[in-house]
């Protein structure tokens, strides 16, 4: 290995490790939040009553007409998204990506799907449901952060 290559390897390895660790941690955080929302979807309050004067709340979001898409609860779609994302961002997947570059682009494309869904859900919360759910917002923030990490990881993938 040439001195230049050694220098390059030293300079990119910490970055690659950082992308791998941060993306996996973000995926697990997203998985946890999406898992909680799915649990709440199936076990949450079914009280047929108005609790307040329509003030912003999570129940209003998770029980709105936008909480189901194509007959599937959005919470379940979020959980499915993060199960796949956690697998794509797991240490073995990062190792595989070094040998098979397509993994990097599949991972990025999948995170882009998540970002597009975030656009739709933020729009629905702000302009249709008129309520913000903090758990949903946490998932949105993690999804955008994950996209940021993965887009940089893909941009610098050739250096690995």
């Amino acid at each position, binding site marked *: 290995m040439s001195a*230049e290559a050694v220098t390059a390897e030293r300079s990119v390895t910490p970055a690659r490790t950082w992308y791998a660790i941060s993306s996996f941690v973000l995926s697990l955080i997203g998985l946890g939040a999406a898992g909680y929302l799915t649990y709440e979807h199936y076990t949450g309050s079914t*009280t*047929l009553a*108005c609790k307040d004067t329509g*003030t912003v709340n999570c129940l209003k979001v998770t029980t709105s007409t936008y909480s189901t898409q194509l007959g599937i609860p959005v919470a379940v779609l979020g959980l499915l998204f993060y199960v796949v994302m956690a697998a794509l961002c797991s240490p073995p997947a990062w190792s595989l990506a070094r040998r098979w570059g397509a993994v990097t682009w599949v991972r990025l494309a999948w995170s882009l799907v998540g970002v597009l869904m975030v*656009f739709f859900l*933020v729009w629905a919360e702000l*302009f249709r449901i008129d309520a913000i759910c903090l758990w949903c917002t946490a998932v949105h923030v993690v999804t955008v952060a994950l996209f940021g990490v993965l887009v940089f990881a893909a*941009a610098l993938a050739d250096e690995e």
Partner: protein
Amino acid sequence: MGTDSRARASAREKAAEMRAAERRRERRQRILIALGLVVAVVVVIGGLVGVKLASGGKATSTAKPASPASDQIIKDVTSVPTSTFNAVGAGTASNFPSPINPPGPQAAGKPRTLYVGAEYCPYCAAERWALAVALSRFGSFGTLGVTHSSTVDVFPNTATLTFHNASFASDVMAFTAYETATNQVNQAGTGYVPLDTLTAADQQLEAKYNAPPFVPASAQGTIPFIYFDGHYVQSGASYSPQVLAGKTQEQIAASLADPNNAISKAVVGSANVLTAAICTTTQQKPVDVCTSPGVVAGAAKLGTS
């Protein structure tokens, strides 16, 4: 080392430098593209939030205000065939009145059923249909309004009746109703325009009996709230407003006579249960109503939720 060797080495170094410079240029380009994508995502989300804030960030219910019900709606609601009541039984009602033991305060004259709700509330929207059908078996409505639940809450814009300014006359019972708010969001965007105010006595009654142990802790202080003259209490709707989604008042009212219709099963089924609860306050009067198969089926559900 000869001149040629030095020249070749120099050329190799220059080529290496050029390759390195090209790699750095490509790297910068890729970083800029990545940065651009992330910024674009943040700008889109920030833009959505900005537009919302610029529009005042307030909820803006576009539900129509209340208006008088048509004669046809009143006729359909107040003249459901006895055969339909009996065929439906408890129907698809899923939330039932709970008994008060020992009995709570009772009205001085005729036994009184007290209702507290609000026009914006979709669960009240569902419950009013059932309560109006049930009450029609004990007396008659002089006036009755129609309205919709809030367009910015769950089950938006559910078509319903309103008890605000409604008049009800009966030989065997009295009915007091409060719609505490309209379906119109107030100027501050923090709630709905207030409507009826409870008397101090009814406020006390509601505060005491719309709380544990009379209703589940999760339902404390919620609406709709119905107090059956000290015998039973109900917090929350008898069925989900989902069954009324997308229907007009005319369509809902016209569905009530058909015992096989999903709306009828929910509304008339709930009405039979509510009728059974009211019958406990009127000493089972009128007898033909309180002993009918539909109401007997409804009575079997009392206190079971």
